[in-house]
């Protein structure tokens, strides 16, 4: 078991430009079953001489029964691509594109509510399940190890950092989910914690938060009330000054609850094991698993 993606995943990739093409290729090389590509100018052609390319998502889904969509289109067209994938009936849509306007996401988020589709991202690294060699995103596959720790994060490279600390200690991962760094995204910490809570193979969870917003506090509530598995957490941005945006559109301290210290206190109160610095995640998880 795992969450979101596994051996049954049939991947559709929308946006096969330089970056999209590179990463689609890496997903396939890792072992992912990519069944379709979508590119408006290349219908009838094949990606890497193997995967059929369609003009529209609707056609691609009808022909290939794809069940996960991955989006690499430029930010200006990302909202449109998400809605196209949702309307084509894809149950899981993962949007990598960075820089989607926040007012586009206001509309997208409202639109997909109750649609039956789940959106991960935008501005995220994607999802990987090492046990079935299913990689849907831009993370370096080689650093992952199959195992029983679920990882959820707002950041890309910080996730790789945490996974690397786990893998070098022989601690494998069930699934690793990057929810993205934007203020409005499709899936929150709590959504992913619910999935990990219900997943038999996930025995412990790493939650990587950062300054800005209150999603970590919501996660803390869920951990306290509903999650029966140990959680190791760290919050980055302790050294960030208020009012300045730290790269991610969502990473800005706008009030007391957006502070790293406030989030850490809430998670500690909820029973999470806090890694005092981002360098200690692996050590703390090793100690937790050793009991």
């Amino acid at each position, binding site marked *: 078991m795992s969450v979101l993606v596994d051996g049954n995943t049939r991947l559709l990739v929308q946006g096969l430009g330089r970056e999209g093409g590179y990463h689609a290729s890496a997903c396939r090389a890792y072992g992912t079953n990519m069944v379709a590509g979508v590119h408006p100018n290349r219908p009838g052609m094949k990606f890497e001489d193997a995967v059929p390319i369609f003009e529209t998502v609707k056609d691609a889904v009808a022909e290939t029964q794809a069940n996960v969509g991955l989006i690499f289109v430029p930010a200006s067209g990302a909202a449109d691509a998400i809605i196209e994938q949702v309307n084509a009936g894809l149950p899981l849509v993962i949007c990598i594109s960075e820089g989607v306007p926040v007012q586009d996401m206001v509309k997208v988020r409202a639109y997909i509510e109750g649609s039956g589709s789940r959106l991960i991202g935008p501005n995220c690294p994607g999802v990987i399940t090492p046990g079935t060699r299913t990689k849907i995103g831009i993370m370096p596959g080689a650093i992952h190890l199959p195992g029983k720790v679920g990882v959820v994060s707002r950041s890309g490279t910080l996730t790789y950092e945490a996974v690397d600390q786990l893998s070098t200690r022989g601690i494998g991962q069930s699934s690793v989910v990057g929810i993205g760094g934007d203020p409005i995204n499709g899936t929150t910490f709590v959504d992913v914690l619910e999935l990990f809570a219900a997943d038999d193979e996930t025995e412990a969870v790493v939650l990587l938060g950062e300054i800005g917003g209150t999603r970590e506090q919501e996660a803390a509530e869920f951990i306290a009330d509903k999650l029966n598995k140990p959680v190791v957490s760290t919050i980055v941005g302790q*050294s960030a000054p208020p009012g300045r945006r730290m790269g991610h559109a969502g990473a800005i301290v706008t009030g007391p609850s957006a502070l790293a210290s406030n989030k850490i206190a809430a998670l500690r109160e909820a029973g999470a094991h806090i890694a005092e610095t981002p360098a200690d995640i692996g050590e703390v998880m090793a100690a937790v698993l050793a009991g």
Partner: protein
Amino acid sequence: MKLHEYQAREILARFGVPVPNATYAETPEAARAAAESFGGKAVVKAQVHAGGRGLAGGVKLVSSADEAADVAKSLIGTNLVTHQTGPTGAPVNGVLVAELTDIKTELYISILVDAELRTPFIMASQAGGMDIEKVAEETPEKLIRLATDPVHGLWPYQARDIAIALGIPPKSVRSASALIMNLFKLFTETDATLVEINPLVVTGDDQVIALDSKIDIEDDALFRHPDLEKLADPAQDGELERRAKDAGLAYVKLDDGSVGCMVNGAGLAMATMDITLRAGTNPANFLDVGGGAQEDKIAEAFKIIVDDPDVKAVLVNIFGGILRCDIAARGVVQGATESGSLLPIVAVMRGTNAEEGLKILADSNINVTFADNLSGAAPTVARVLAGGN
């Protein structure tokens, strides 16, 4: 992207929001002429991208055209230091000369996107002229809050409810409601991240006008607003910030830091900044080189970091993914060579092509010390800052 008050005022007017008569002046002569057209009495306001102008001496009442010219002369060409600018302040390239308004009541209204509610959110208050944060803290019952519908937006009855709750005189409720509807239209149509009218005033003859305003436009949405993009004033940012923006780097200069940080990815960049705390010091900057960076961009990032006089050591932390470590390493060597910087560098490289990257750094003649991982970086940074290797 921040706008100047004079630019925001023009956009408000374009969207049908009443504003006071005013003229933007870049010379004392122009300021004199503007004040003359208002009969000599006016308010002269320095145009900078920062709040707190009044307390900093950037807003002055004048009673004659000569005085307006004198004030303009004393402001234009100087740097205004407010509590929101750095110690060097922000350059004043012009002033807004505005006609005096007969103020009966000062109110407040703003619109932003609330990330928790995932929709545009309106805040209003009868305590105009005050910081809204202070109102929220001291008299939360006086705060009017409205989450708008994410798809439809604001309904007219909601605008009317706000106008009534603000205590607008009955005969002006209709025009105030229209003003609020227009503000909301402006917010969505310009992809603003903030529209703030403080104060919104009721005049002696019960007109409702936007006396002072602040509009921020979302950088990520500028691709569909080429007209607004032209309003950018990069001179308001610091020199290093401007270079970073030109190079397409996410960079924030931080106060009281000594370790320059160069990282790929915003989350890892914050994690790396936090590690400098464990080294007993502070980060001098946030810098994310981004995913698809090439050598030239990495080199410029390095040069921006070392051109900050506060920086005493550089911590490079690259987790190769989209960005390969060998490219990052070549960029660092290029940046160090071109800048002639002798500052010690601590490098951590993992992920794609890490071995190649580390070899490029080791084979170069730059002043570099290696750490295996993030936790090893803290003591290494502490050691090089203390002058060891």
